[in-house]
């Protein structure tokens, strides 16, 4: 079966489109997060999503509607704990993340164990993206990208040198909160694609791969997005042909791209 044969199915078209959108989104935000050494925030927020989705399933609600506000609140907590308390950012992420998982496990046990729905969110199912979910992804992706473009220079300045950005009059606290909130929305969007367990790979791998070879920030941003889109599209195609789980295949393709660029960079460096 050729890729064109797959394309006649609407659910395949939705998977490719939503996948590419979320890839660009997570790769763009991921670059800011990786450079600010906040890579694991995606992991932490995805664990909170687990609790939020378990809560939604417990009450028979649509998970997206509950996950978005709850993960946003959790991101706000992480920000406040690390900014205003005597606490490092990774400790704040660890606390909020474990509370999210603990809440999810308790709720799952109260509803007589993990049901199939909850497990499907753990590992994702991009082929099950519905029409409303695609529209929601489109709107939220568009919104997040517009916000990133609008605040691009402030995000760039704060990521490079936060103290200088502050002195230049940039409201770095508000900007940090914005970055973490956008990450929260992206994490929830990406759950359906790769699942709670693998979300941080979408944020970290394309950005880290791009950083192996990019010489300028804009180049790194574009390269990171290109790698993410390539990994999602080729990972999806590969998963159809080889009958593999889509989310995990996307992550593995991302990893292979990273290994290739890392090795290439090392060889080039040794060659000089």
């Amino acid at each position, binding site marked *: 079966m050729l890729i064109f044969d797959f394309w006649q199915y609407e659910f395949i078209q939705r998977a490719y489109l939503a996948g590419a959108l979320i890839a660009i989104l997570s790769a763009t935000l991921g670059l800011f997060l990786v450079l600010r050494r906040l890579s694991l925030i995606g992991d932490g927020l995805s664990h909170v999503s687990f609790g939020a989705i378990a809560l939604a399933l417990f009450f028979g609600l649509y998970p997206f509607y509950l996950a978005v506000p709850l993960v946003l609140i959790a991101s706000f907590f992480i920000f406040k704990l690390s900014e205003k308390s005597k606490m490092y950012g990774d400790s704040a992420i660890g606390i909020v993340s474990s509370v999210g998982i603990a809440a999810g496990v308790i709720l799952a046990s109260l509803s007589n164990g993990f049901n199939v729905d909850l497990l499907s969110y753990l590992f994702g199912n991009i082929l099950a993206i519905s029409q409303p979910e695609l529209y929601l992804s489109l709107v939220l992706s568009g919104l997040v990208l517009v916000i990133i473009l609008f605040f691009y220079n402030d995000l760039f300045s704060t990521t490079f040198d936060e103290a200088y950005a*502050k002195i230049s009059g940039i409201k770095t606290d508000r900007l940090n909160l914005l970055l973490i909130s956008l990450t929260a929305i992206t994490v929830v969007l990406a759950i359906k694609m790769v699942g709670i367990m693998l979300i941080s790979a979408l944020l970290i791998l394309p950005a880290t791969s791009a950083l192996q070879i*990019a010489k*300028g920030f804009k180049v790194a941003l574009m390269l990171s997005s290109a790698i993410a889109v390539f990994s999602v599209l080729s990972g999806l195609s590969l998963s159809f042909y080889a009958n593999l789980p889509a989310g995990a295949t996307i992550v593995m393709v991302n990893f292979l791209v990273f290994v290739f660029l890392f090795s290439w960079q090392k060889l080039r460096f040794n060659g000089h």
Partner: protein
Amino acid sequence: MPEVLKIQNLNFSYGPSAVLSDVSFTVSQGDYLALAGPNGAGKTTLIKVILGLEKKTSGSGQLLGEDIDKFKSWEKIGYLPQKIHTFNPLFPVSAQEVVSLGLLSKKKYPKILNLADRQKIKNTLDRLGTANLARRPINELSGGEQQKVFLARALVSQPQILILDEPSAALDPETRTNFFQLLAKLNQEQKLTIIIITHDTAYIGQYANKLLYLDKKVIFCGPLVDFCHSPDMEKYFGVFSQHLICHQHSSN
């Protein structure tokens, strides 16, 4: 010359421990003020309070006529921090992108560089003799080259006041001399007001016209000529240092 900075009875403390106590001084336009004092004297804290990075406990301050707590005209202030090497070495950024931050952060949204801005970046890099570094990644430059690029970032918005926090700490003697000569040129030719924290006593004497010696409180503040004739200063600086500063100053 009009006053560009006026600090009055300023106090700052971290919890119960006082860092700055009843600090008062003024800086006039075109001054080259050296801020000296032992480690832990509160020099960097004072600069942070002036720049709004720390909130004063009490007292008042005016920067270019505005209250330091409400100051907004950041495009008029250039700043070269103490630790330029704290930036992430993995950050893929060219020298001209670093310099552009000096303009971008002060522009109105959506903060896009126009042709005039690009020319300013080019001119500033040219003026500091770093035009050849424009496209090179910042993490591939030497310490001295990086320092010049960061100085270009501080100067690109054509500030009225340049504040430097131990800018010469990582420089070799030759680069250090060139760096201080460059600052002197900016001060003399463009009447740029300079406030510099430095332990380089020889350079203080050679280039600065005012000295503020701080040890949690103001020990001395005034023209270097007065400092040289002050017997009180001998015990703080030691005979040798006071002599060295004054010798450099008189021979300049």
